[in-house]
């Protein structure tokens, strides 16, 4: 971002004559506003639309297809509708905390974007404690959810809030521990630093670096899903048990804000996973044009991150939800020990495995990954053929 600022304050730039120390924060604030209004809010909305379409597709339904092409503007319609709804605060609720809870939830979620990179130069603030900062601000969401649950003075909300708190704090441990293999390897907590330590090629990603980082990826992704209250870990808002969990008493815009957080948070999960394990915005240096390179980087990062958003939707459409005791068992009895082993294993790997062998393992694991992908698609093809679908079977086809 420094280059961008320098070019802006140079002769003939938009901010010519402004001293650097003033121009830098100005650019940062302007970019921050652009990110929040031009990216975060639309991405949460679009994800909600896409999730409903993907769900519908998996469930042989059509899904929203009326507002705009393929129902694309459904999220705007939903937002408008909720804007015009009455905002009910139950008389028994704690009015202040009840009103405050959505603020904490949304602020905690939007603030994570301060450290989420977009390209090699575009990031609101490249903090030297980037990943730690993200872990920390995500914690604000827990407070908001617990506050919403408690202040509603409703037993379903309370159960949902408490469940959510127990779940999120538990899964913060394996998620936090799974970051360490990467921190050990890079020696930095900065998001951009972590990405720079990887390459564009899959074998240069930490995902395929060694078996421990490979395992750490899965622990992290599962823990992140749990922290984001996603199926199979959506017990705080389990609609078949707790009506609507912590947001039972919320209505209209405030209700929508909780879901804004949930859907937007999916992208954050994808972005963190991409940064830590999948080489972030790294692209081959195919051109000298910084603009073109930035677009390519942004596209790469976005596609990688959004792939995990899609995976989360897919998982949600496939799996049932676990029970609260099973949730805790999975966390403390399996994921925490595995995460600790991953961390120590990576440390030992760094010390004892020679460079050449490590390189071979990287290539070997990448090859293995490619084989898994090929096998997966062959399996899909096999099932499609076995199903032997006729045109009449597409009676409920979502593409109409």
């Amino acid at each position, binding site marked *: 971002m420094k280059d961008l600022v320098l070019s802006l304050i140079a002769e003939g730039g938009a901010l010519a004559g402004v001293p650097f120390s003033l121009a830098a924060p100005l650019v940062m604030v302007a970019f921050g506003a652009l990110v929040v209004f031009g990216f975060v809010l639309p991405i949460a909305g679009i994800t909600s639309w896409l999730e409903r379409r993907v769900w519908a597709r998996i469930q*042989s339904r059509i899904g929203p297809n009326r507002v705009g092409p393929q129902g694309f503007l459904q999220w705007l319609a939903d937002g408008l509708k909720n804007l015009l709804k009455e905002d009910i605060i139950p008389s028994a609720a704690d009015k202040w905390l009840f009103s405050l809870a959505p603020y904490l939830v949304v602020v905690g979620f939007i603030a994570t974007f301060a450290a989420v990179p977009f390209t090699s130069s575009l990031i609101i603030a490249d903090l030297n404690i980037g990943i730690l900062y993200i872990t920390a601000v995500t914690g604000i969401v827990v407070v908001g959810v617990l506050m919403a649950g408690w202040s509603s003075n409703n037993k379903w909300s309370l*159960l949902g809030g408490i469940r959510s708190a127990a779940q999120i704090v538990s899964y913060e441990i394996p998620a936090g521990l799974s970051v360490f293999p990467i921190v050990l390897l890079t020696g930095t907590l900065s998001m951009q630093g972590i990405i720079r330590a990887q390459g564009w090629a899959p074998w240069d990603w930490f995902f395929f670096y060694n078996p421990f980082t490979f395992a750490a990826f899965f622990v992290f992704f599962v823990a992140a899903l749990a922290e984001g209250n996603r199926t*199979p870990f959506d017990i705080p808002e389990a609609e*078949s*048990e707790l009506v609507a969990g912590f947001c039972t008493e919320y209505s209209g815009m405030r209700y929508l804000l909780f879901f804004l957080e949930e859907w937007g948070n999916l992208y954050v999960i994808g972005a963190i996973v991409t940064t830590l394990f999948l080489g972030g915005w790294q692209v081959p240096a195919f051109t000298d044009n910084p603009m073109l390179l930035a677009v390519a980087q942004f596209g790469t990062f976005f596609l990688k991150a959004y792939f995990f958003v899609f995976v989360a939707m897919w998982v949600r459409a496939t799996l049932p939800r676990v*029970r*609260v005791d099973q949730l805790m068992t999975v966390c403390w009895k399996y994921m925490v020990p595995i995460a600790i082993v991953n961390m120590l294993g990576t440390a030992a790997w760094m010390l004892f495995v020679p460079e050449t062998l490590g390189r071979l393992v990287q290539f070997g694991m990448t090859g293995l990954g490619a084989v898994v992908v090929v096998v997966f698609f062959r399996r899909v093809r096999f099932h499609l053929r076995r199903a032997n679908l006729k045109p009449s079977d597409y009676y409920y086809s979502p593409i109409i």
Partner: protein
Amino acid sequence: MSLGGFDVQVLRENGFATEEMTLNMGPQHPSTHGVLRFVVRADGEVMTEAVPDVGYLHRSIEKIAEKVGYHGFMPYTDRVDYVAAMPCNQGWAMVCEKLAGIEVPRRAEYCRVIACEFNRISSHLIAVGTMGMDIGAFTPFTHALREREHINDLLEELCGARLTFNYMRIGGVAWDLPPDFAEKGLAYIDRFEPLIDEYNALISFNKIYKERLINVAVITGEEAINYNLVGPNLRGSGVDFDVRRDIPYSIYPELQFDVPVGHGEEGTLGDCFDRYMVRIREIQESCKIIRQCLQQIPEGSVLAKIPRKFKPPVGDAYVRIESARGDMGWYCVSDGSEYPYRVKVRTGSFTATSIIEQVSRGLMIADLITVVASFDLVAPEIDR
């Protein structure tokens, strides 16, 4: 109960009691299968008791029978159990025929069995789908309902209705099978049978699904008999009893089918998973029955000669049929007039409700939903 290895009783005596919370689950709750209410006393997530409170869907159907007459009561029987209305139709028709000693044409008996078994499949599909939905997977529900729609299409061709059929009449059925019904029915069965594997792959043998169902709410065979469980709930506990086979009625003795019984294939005998799997297997057996019926169905009339003013002789009759929810009893007392003197319906959901209080002790709140779904309760059938 132990908390962190400490005896709760000791903790209580020392003043560390946690308060029990009283929760109303229902009547307006997403997963109480209609309007059923449970008063749950829970310590955190663990329930100390869950007392069912029935009566929110009482429509005094039995009393209505005393005012609308024998023929006129047929549409009301649809509302006893709207998820499986055909067996209710059949129960009422059979009890009237028994009162008056009417012989039903063979073709009508075949039509009845075909309709009932199609309805049994569609009812079990709902049971399987809602089981998935109640433990958090929405996809099985839509897939099950997709197949159910095809059955509804078939039954709509048969009788013009998709849910409350009003298909049967005293002495037979209202309409004969449509000309190409047999081909369509067989084509459907051929297409549907392999799909059961799909459900099994998607949910039945999913790891999380099994974790949620296995060893939850175990009911022994003896308990099941003591609490008068019927149908798949009874067979899930390993008791081999099916009205269709053991107290035969209609043309069931002439048909080849097995009675699936739970055998604790994944966990303890009589857990939620066994009850669930019995339903999956029953779907397969129903497919077999329909196939045989559609191939063997004889020609002939479908309705016996019944006077418009139907006046059975003084007396009473009780028939038992196997509805989708198990042994369903229809009792009717006639005083010789056009109107029944008393009608009583005995339903499986009602007796299954009574065991919930017993099995729910010590389970978690999420398990209560699983238990309700595993009994396949249908609220209107409880209250009638």
